[in-house]
């Protein structure tokens, strides 16, 4: 699959959030959030609804601009080097982010062009194969089931072999097979040196999958440590 290993990257930390705050009107979605993510790990982000998980991922992806604080992607300030950060970051949100009236393959080709991906067709074939969506390649996205659309969305986020993958509740809408594929993909990516940040509702699975854990409640970081220092029970307590 060829994910860029980053052992010799600019910085030893893949991602840093420094005092990041984001306010919407009167509500403070993120309140001076501080954390780091190292290369090659899977970071699980947990928190109750409205805690700020989605906002955090959007801010890290560059979709949302923080009111305060700094974000470093591979050592680069996100604000200064938007294009370079975007080149190595992949994001999956709640919306499909696909052109509904184009086919699967047209979508993938388009985004491959946006990222300047070399060997477009090899890359696309590989993704279609991995996500088992090859049969749908010439179908319009609007005709696919939610589960299949989600697979295409995730495949799209990987078109440029990102070193940093940001996933906002990626398992939503996926069927059992889809989730298996997703977990496998996440493992592969992390093993090749890239970092995966994913927020999830599924505490048990999430905890199993993660190397490190970040818990957010009401915009504050309430826990940030490796996964084996927290139990399922304790995690549930923190989410109340």
């Amino acid at each position, binding site marked *: 699959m060829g994910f860029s290993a980053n052992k010799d990257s600019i910085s030893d930390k893949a991602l840093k959030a420094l005092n990041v705050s984001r306010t919407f009107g009167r509500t403070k979605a993120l309140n001076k959030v501080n954390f780091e993510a190292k290369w090659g790990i899977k970071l699980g982000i947990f928190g109750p609804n409205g805690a700020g998980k989605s906002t955090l991922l*959007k801010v890290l992806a*560059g979709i949302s601009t923080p009111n305060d604080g700094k974000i470093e992607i591979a050592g680069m300030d996100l604000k200064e080097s938007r*294009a370079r950060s*975007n080149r190595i970051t992949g994001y999956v949100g709640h919306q499909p982010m696909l052109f509904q*009236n184009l086919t699967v393959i047209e979508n993938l080709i388009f985004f491959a062009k946006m990222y300047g991906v070399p060997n477009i067709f090899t890359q696309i074939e590989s993704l279609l194969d991995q996500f088992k969506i090859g049969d749908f390649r010439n179908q319009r996205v609007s005709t696919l089931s939610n589960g299949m659309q989600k697979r295409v969305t995730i495949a799209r986020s990987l078109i440029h072999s990102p070193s940093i993958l940001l996933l906002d509740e990626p398992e939503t809408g996926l069927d059992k097979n889809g989730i298996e594929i997703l977990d496998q993909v996440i493992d592969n990516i992390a093993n090749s040196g890239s970092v995966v940040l994913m927020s999830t509702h599924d505490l048990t699975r999430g905890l199993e999958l993660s190397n490190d854990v970040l818990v957010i409640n009401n915009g504050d970081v309430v826990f940030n440590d490796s996964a084996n220092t927290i139990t399922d029970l304790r995690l549930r307590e923190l989410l109340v």
Partner: protein
Amino acid sequence: MRLFISSALAIYIKDLRIELRTRESILSILFFALLTSFIFRFAFDPNPKVMEAVGPGIVWVAFLFAGVIALSHSFVSERDQGTLQALMISPIPPEVILVGKAASIFTIIFIVELIMLPVFVILYDLPILDVWFGIIAFLTTLGFVSVGTLFSAIASHTRSRELLLPLLFLPAIIPLLIAAVASTNLIFQGSEIQDFSKWVQLLLLYDAISIVLSSILFGYVLED
């Protein structure tokens, strides 16, 4: 530079491909332009002298209103599908998105304008099949599409986009309207290029300024 062109081109082709499949914009614009021109036919005294006087104005009002509709469609579906977000997180600069989208909107509107030409000949007997008119139409459409794409991106964020877009857009393109109507009038009267060259210059000036300003300002609209 190469990536700029190929990305803008990819966006352009993608938009046209979607339009070809759904025919969403082009049909409603064409319909609206036809409707506008019919209504005006009955709004004025059919006296040929009157028609001669108001002809250019009617043509341009019809084109402008059609343009507003095209522009309001352009960002709405992108926003709904989340694809605008997808473009934002890609490494391409916002100017590329502007150029690609403006080019596709321009193409759609220009095609509609071309289709409307024989309609105007039939309804109003206007000597509109003229190369110079084509050039004026090209420049004017270019101007209002570059400003309109910018404002459309802003308006598409809000729920009252049908109100906000015309409110922002129509005052901003008044110089275009003046230049277009004045030069069209001269063309219909059979004037030579020397007579309306200064209007062409005005259109070029407006286009240059609006393209530059829109490219610079578009990036700010995309930021959240």
